[in-house]
């Protein structure tokens, strides 16, 4: 049984995969943009950078072959599991 973690908590520079996204907690317009940016169940993700200063928000996440900026609030709705080596 693989252990799960929310996207906003992922350790940096580790390969994970999206297990589930709670679309109901993400506003429609943002959900649509999120899908447009390639975020989906099953895609490979990697946390690259955490934002500036104390808040450490937003996050830079690699999704597939693309890097996107995303706020923690939205990232917290995305559940990830470690990539099987």
């Amino acid at each position, binding site marked *: 049984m693989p252990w799960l973690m929310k996207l906003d908590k992922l350790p940096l520079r580790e390969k994970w995969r999206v297990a589930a996204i709670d679309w109901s907690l993400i506003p429609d317009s*943002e959900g*649509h943009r*999120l899908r447009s*940016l390639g975020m*989906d169940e099953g895609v490979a993700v990697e946390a690259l950078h955490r934002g*500036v*200063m104390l808040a450490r928000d937003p996050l830079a996440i690699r999704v*597939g072959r693309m890097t*996107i900026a995303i*706020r923690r609030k939205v990232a917290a709705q995305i559940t990830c599991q470690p990539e099987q080596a």
Partner: protein
Amino acid sequence: MTKMPPVIALVGNPNAGKTALFNALTGARQKVANYPGVTVERKAGRMALGDGRPAELVDLPGAYSLVPDSLDEEVTRNVVLGQQPGQRRPEALIVVVDAGNLDNHLRFTLEIIALGFPVVVALNMIDLAERDGLTVSSEALADQLGVPVIETVAVRKRGLEELREAIGTAVTAPEPQGDLAAKLIGDRKDISDRARDIARSVVLNETGGRQWTRRLDAVLLHPLAGPIILFALLFVMFQAVFAWSDAPIGWIEGAMEWLGALVSSVLPGGLFQSLVVDGIIAGVGSVVVFLPQILILFFFILILEATGYMTRAAFVMDRLMAYVGLSGHSFIPLLSSFACAIPGIMATRSVMDQKERLTTILVAPLMTCAARLPVYTVIIGAFIPAQSVGPGVGLQGLVLFGLYLAGIVGAMLAALAIRKGITKSSGSSFLMEMPRFQMPRLRDLALGLWQRAWVFLRRAGTIIFAASVILWALLSFPNVPEGSDMSQAEYSVAGRIAGTIEPVVRPIGFNKDIALAIIPAMAAREVAVSALATANAIDDSGDEDAVAQTLGQRLAGAWSLATALAFLAWFVFAPQCISTIAVTKRETNSWRWPIFMTVYLFALAYIAAGITYWTAVYFGLG
């Protein structure tokens, strides 16, 4: 029968290298205009097909999907579906995809192919993909998609001939029939999955990847170094706007002076000479003088955009902007507003959240645009002593910096108030692609800069031209009768209007001069300077520097320091620009918001000027 050349549309995700490909295919033969009714730019140009036939190539705004998220994407969808007024439906499409980001770009490609258009896919930036260690098979991709795929490197002109051939063949294929809108497939999961499957199957080999961008990001997005680098960059940018523009501004002033003298010597003296020299050359010239500063600012902004740094700046600023209910998306338009609020307001189209976009539009005029500079310069020069307040820091510079800061702080507070009180929304959102870093191409930069310069000059030639002529007429008629103790400026129509307004602005320390100046300044803020000059009965047709100098001396003698400071405070906030109000009307598609903006900014300006005046008077500066 002569047939119209076929229309080919260039579509693709943002950051696919679409604009570079468009520039490479059309050369400099481009026309930039707006689609009727919206401020989305329509870029079109002539391209030659493989057999030499001409075609019209239209560069559509970058889109992630045909289900629109923004005004830009809406235009792209409408053009493709043939529903955009003023644009023929394209006969064929070129879909530009980034070879290094197929997982994502193929979804949009599949959406386009599903519509049934003749399509050619440009597999662009194939060199960067190879540099990143990807081997992509264009043959396999063509097989999977069922359309021709051409490998291109737009910036090196690789693959352009093959692309011309392929599109020349494609336009002969039948156009799609029936209701295209019914064939929109949107963001269905099976399409995304299929795109990823195809991407996986055509990438033959993968090693390493994106080290360069990663290493740069490690520094530029660093929690501490990132903000420091951003602020250092902004500091250099604003320094350059002033430092580099000195010489070219001198040239333009010299040219205007020469032109004025030439016209004076050719035209017989009298009303017409006065109109051309005092009205048109002085009026339009006082605005064209800012072209160098605006171009320098745009030069930096274009570089920041072309390299991909702008999205990093948005990332770094997002958290700060969130405190006032905005996001990193708003940072880019607000930065542009330091040059001019008009392109700034137009750039808000990329802000996803509509309420956040509205807030950004409403506060954009508070950013100190280049047109305020001449007003600030004249008043500061006349009233603030050129003394040093510390090593390398002059009092005049400090006051100027304070005026910029007042605008920024004012904008932040206004944004907070608007978010809480008017657009009432739970918060902003921030979600954006951060593209790879790229070297900007000199040619693309030059083209972008030229297009900005042209828009600015066209404005100078129309709105400011008209304002100058009207102001000149209002100040010249009716002629003051012989032996009257009133000056021409006081006796004229403009003087009488100013006389009516003066009681309203007297409580905030303004005199009749200022009442006269702030009305024509509605056309463009910098007109305030030439209006003051004319009202002071100075021969305005001569050397610009001399005018500024003597004007400064006159003002220093005639105004109190308290009045001068109140005048500066007024200009920090006042919505003194009809073009800004007009573009707000167009972008918000209503009269409600431009009227609201005008009222709240005038109220702020009035209060700020009043507080400044009475505080100064209290301290004995009245």
